[in-house]
């Protein structure tokens, strides 16, 4: 496979994943804005912070109203990380790697883009937001379905999955990091129940509110939420789960190519370290510091993969 194609696949699926995550964040913010109007502005602000795009938001808007945030995160095409911009970027990459995709995956991506151009083409009123978010969810599920249902499990698939999980790991880490203070023992004592609003945003942002209840019951606790999002091997958006999937795909590539790489080596090293950790260690070390380190490692891993597999030359 061409290095450029591997890079195109990796980025196509990073963009798709990030678009989906952004839509999920908007969904979480919207729920809270609806039910807790007093904290709405703060929640919207923390959601924009999670995407890391506060500065560019401030360039465009003064206040963190639901209207402004929704517009900025979903449909502003002058903002490169809005859902619409990322879906366009994903489609552009899909055109670039068209020969590596099945017709089904290409058509699902193309249709996803066409559908969102319609849905996100005009300002979205609050009452239409759930439907718009539903469309984004559905359309990206169709792309994922086509990927899983029609693609060979070869290097093409590996690069697509690696892109997905690198993005997902970063996204979950960011969600936790923006809210890390509410999970700290000093504010909410170990074992005490969290402020409803805060934990709801966190869990909703990773589509894990129901999953959490199934595993840990209805009483959310700071430590168990952090533990769940970092160390759960069942939760498909946890840090350890994403890392394990990246490792598995890198291992598959190494075997397929008969060639071990620095990135594969790096991935093994950081995973061994993560596997050995316990949630107590994380809190002892400092949750924020742990997450910062994790994000840093994740970036390094991405950059090494890019280099090892010659995405750019």
């Amino acid at each position: 496979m061409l290095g450029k194609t591997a890079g195109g696949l990796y980025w196509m699926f990073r963009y798709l994943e990030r678009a989906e995550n952004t839509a999920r964040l908007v969904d979480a913010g919207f729920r809270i804005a609806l039910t807790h109007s007093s904290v709405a502005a703060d929640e919207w602000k923390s959601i924009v912070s999670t995407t890391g795009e506060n500065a560019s938001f401030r360039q465009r808007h003064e206040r963190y109203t639901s209207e402004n945030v929704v517009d900025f995160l979903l449909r502003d095409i002058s903002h490169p990380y809005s859902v619409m911009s990322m879906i366009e970027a994903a489609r552009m990459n899909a055109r670039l790697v068209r020969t590596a995709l099945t017709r089904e995956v290409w058509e699902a991506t193309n249709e996803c883009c066409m559908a969102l151009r319609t849905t996100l083409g005009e300002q979205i009123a609050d009452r239409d937001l759930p439907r718009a978010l539903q469309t984004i969810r559905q359309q990206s599920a169709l792309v994922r379905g086509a990927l899983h249902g029609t693609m060979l499990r070869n290097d093409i698939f590996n690069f697509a999955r690696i892109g997905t999980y690198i993005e997902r790991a970063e996204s979950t880490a960011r969600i936790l990091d923006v809210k890390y203070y509410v999970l700290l023992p000093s504010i909410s004592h170990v074992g005490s129940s969290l402020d409803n609003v805060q934990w709801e945003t966190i869990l909703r942002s990773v589509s894990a509110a129901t999953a959490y209840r199934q595993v840990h019951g209805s009483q959310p606790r700071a430590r168990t939420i952090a533990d769940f999002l970092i160390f759960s091997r069942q939760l498909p958006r946890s840090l350890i789960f994403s890392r394990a999937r990246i490792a598995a795909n890198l291992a598959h590539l190494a075997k397929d190519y008969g060639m071990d790489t620095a990135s594969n080596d790096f991935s093994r090293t950081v995973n061994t370290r993560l596997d050995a950790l316990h949630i107590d260690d994380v809190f002892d070390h400092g949750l924020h510091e742990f997450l910062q380190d994790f994000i840093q490692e994740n970036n390094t891993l991405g950059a090494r993969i890019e280099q090892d597999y010659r995405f750019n030359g």
Partner: protein
Amino acid sequence: MSDRVYFFDEMGGDGSGRRAPYAEYGAWLDGEDVQRLHRVSQEAEAFFRRTGITFNVYGEPGATERLIPFDVVPRIITAREWDRLVKGIDQRVRALNAFLHDIYHRQEIIRAGRIPADLIAGNEAYLPEMAGFSPPGDIYTHIVGVDLVRTGPDEFFVLEDNARTPSGVSYMLENRETMLQLFPELFSRIPVRQVQKYPAMLRRGLAASAPGIAAPDPVVAVLTPGIHNSAYYEHSFLADQMGVELVEGHDLRVVDGRVAMRTTQGYTPIDVLYRRVDDAFLDPLTFNPKSMLGVPGIMDIYRAGGITIANAPGTGIADDKAIYSYMPEIVEFYTGEPARLKNVETYRCSEPGSLAYVLENLSDLVVKEVHGSGGYGMLVGPAASKSELAAFEAKLRAKPGNYIAQPTLALSTVPILAEQGLSPRHVDLRPYVIVSPQGIDVTPGGLTRVALREGSLVVNSSQGGGTKDTWVLED
């Protein structure tokens, strides 16, 4: 215009009833409701959008990806008509390759006085770098599109030879795919010859043209200028259908005397490059030094037998419009028999007598730039206004050698589905030819381009043309 001139309609003939090739289709059509056809026609558009069959329009930043309008009424050709065309095309394509070999070697045709020497010497499409070099199998133009027009039941003319990088073959294939989806019943009712084998034939033909150094299963790749090129869809479609890599210049470099592509596992040599990049951009070391689209050093590797470039650099000399006017002589010179396919009568404005005639009769003629393509920079006399004629006359006088002129042909028509129902429009036909050491293969079908505007004779997609599926019937 249509009041005065008689046009041959391929479905209706002279008006006395449907022509035989359309009998079965017509019977089906009679049972159809125009409303349903319109509905299905809209489905076709949705199908094209979903599939992403688009072309990019230059200079239109807003809507860069556009659809070429597709008409649901097929153009039908009988087995007998087709066999005649294939014989003519085969002969013509053999002559084109022989001509190219001769021009880049001994130039016997010039020595024999059959074409003037300055036709070659002063021509930009002639590449001195190719002189004395013989590509594998002496094949210069592996992929050819021969543009044909029809004026009567048995009157076919070659309008143009496309020997450099003929485009549109993806439309031939996707149009058929669309028709199969929209009207499956027609294909069980009418025996239409298949076009779907084209990508496999192309890959086989390209592989068979690999240089001696290649492994038994040669590595083929398609070279595209990139995602912003107007024909990018076609490039990626062909690579996908052939199951080969689609590369750009920056994926390639010279490694150990071969042109190699950067893969996830290192550099892999390419044996045959089907390039959709023009000569001038192919190698910045040899041609345009500013080109970012090509591969520095590829020409040296090519001449050393390290790669096959299809079509060969310098094939443009064979489809130049000034050369076109000599095609009857060229065909006869190399094949020893008169050309089976007729040329359109052509006036070379470089010749004083012809220029005088052309200026005198400008409003009845079609005038084309010698090196132009895509319907740009041409004058359709009968459709031009007084001021357009005057402006063109000035251009002609300033640079007569830049132009040729042809009579306005009474292009045949085939009905399209217009708002009120079926209505005749002018068409041309581009069959696709693959040349390899194993022989010449003409895919039974081709691209029918149709001028959608009533009365218009310009079928180019860049000028408001559409396409139709082209059916060649089984015997």
